[in-house]
């Protein structure tokens, strides 16, 4: 209990200082907001090309597909706010040898590296994503009850954990190869597949995006839950994927640390 309180207190200090530092760049916040709005408008435009004249996309109606788009926007915002600034710094720590200092601190190193800072860059995207979900879900026939909403939030949380674990797994490889940081760009590109419901893809890709790279569990499954079309097996699978990914990321980090030899050695 005391340990948990210590971690929470540390977290508050981390994020307080990060936000205070970032608020110096107010013009950037405005630009990011503009870019996020334009980006969402463009995505919705491209999505609209698949509809019209009574067409559907992989069995999803226009409003239902917008919920998927909303979940994607939300997750992308989280990635810019939380994952990019933190996990992007790992490679610098490895290259410059400052990872040594992190490892010496009396706090879990994965916790420190994953939660050290926050950037407001993605906050506007998070807000837009939530707004789009709130607009589209009732129009797509979702009826929010407290229990259903709680389940949907649980699945969204599982999606976040899965997303985090994928990023962290890739970031960990920089212990061996400093040059793999660009691999996160490949991951980012592959994850854009999550803008669309998974059933819109051909069977081979559907399998790939479910089993190998769990894109389906990032956007489609949370959207199903939000639309009240979830089932117990779906919920179980989402939680299982999140649990396994997180466990893997943790085990892989331990394993990687065993190979860490500090900079210049």
């Amino acid at each position: 209990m005391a340990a948990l309180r210590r971690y929470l207190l540390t977290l508050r200090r981390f994020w307080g200082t990060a936000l205070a530092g970032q608020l110096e760049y107010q013009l950037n916040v405005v630009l990011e907001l503009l870019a996020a709005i334009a980006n969402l408008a463009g995505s919705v435009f491209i999505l609209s090309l698949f509809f019209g004249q009574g067409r559907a996309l992989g069995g999803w109606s226009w409003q239902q597909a917008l919920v998927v788009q909303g979940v994607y926007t939300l997750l992308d915002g989280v990635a810019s706010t939380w994952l990019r600034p933190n996990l992007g710094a790992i490679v610098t720590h490895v290259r410059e040898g400052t990872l040594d200092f992190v490892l010496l601190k009396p706090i879990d190193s994965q916790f420190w590296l994953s939660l050290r800072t926050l950037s407001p860059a993605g906050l506007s995207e998070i807000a837009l994503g939530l707004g789009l979900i709130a607009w589209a879900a009732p129009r797509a026939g979702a009826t929010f009850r407290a229990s259903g909403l709680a389940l949907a939030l649980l699945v969204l949380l599982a999606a976040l954990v899965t997303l985090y674990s994928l990023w962290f797994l890739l970031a960990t490889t920089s212990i061996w190869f400093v040059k793999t940081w660009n691999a996160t760009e490949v991951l980012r590109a592959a994850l854009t597949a999550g803008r669309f419901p998974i059933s819109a893809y051909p069977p081979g890709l559907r399998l790939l995006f479910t089993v190998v790279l769990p894109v389906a569990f990032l956007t489609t499954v949370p959207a199903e839950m939000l639309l009240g079309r979830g089932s117990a097996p779906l919920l179980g699978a989402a939680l299982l994927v999140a649990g396994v990914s997180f466990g893997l990321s943790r085990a892989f980090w331990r394993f990687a640390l065993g190979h860490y030899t500090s900079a210049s050695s």
Partner: protein
Amino acid sequence: MAIGSPLRKRGFRPARALLSSQFALMSEYRAEIALWALSGLLPFIMLALWRQAPAGAALGLGSLGLDRYFLSAYLVRQFSVVWVVFAFEEDALLGRLSPYLLQPLHPLWRYVAAHLAEQLTRLPFAAVIAAVFFLINPGAFWLPSVGQFVLAALATLGAFAIAFLLQSLIAALCFFSEKASALERLLFVPYLFFSGLLAPLAAFPQGVRAWAQWTPFPWLIDFPARLLAGLPVALGVGFAAELAWIAVLLPLALLLWRAGVRRYTAMGA
């Protein structure tokens, strides 16, 4: 410091030296460039969607046309990627720009050479990805005729020139503001959605398409990709539009650059 004058005066020696040194530099970063090439997979994801969707059949390209269009879009994108604003911002902030300005060569040439060298390094990776595409999907295989290929290469070069000039404009703004590269994010949004990377322009509603054709973006991917894929395309209009945009952007970029150099104080902005 007129662009091009040193090349005229001393022949192609400086150009060759610049290109070969930049190529050696870029070859160092083979692994990164391979990953960058891989991160451009977006057109293939979109292809999978368009082939599956009923809206794709209504485009009138046929499934073969779709395959070839999106592979061409990928290739055109690989050979017209521009990152001059990021390189320039770093050089300006770290003060590396000062020695470049002393040389009797417009610094933009250095970035042009770096981009061309990087495209050369990309070539094998792009070829491998095209080969894998044909292995998975042998029915889509085609070889453009020599004429088609030359025209597509010229159109891609034009697309590269427009994208390069657009970003140079933003780069020149780095002389005036420290965070001009944030503007690049705003430029990238219409590029992404109106260039034809995610959907061929034929899929756009009539009104949007008519409006988009007055922006530089459709000429950056859609036009060269259609040429390479052998789809019907308005040849004269396309090349005229590319030339017109180059004619508008080139003086603008040079003027803004000159005004910026005058304000430059060697460190920071």
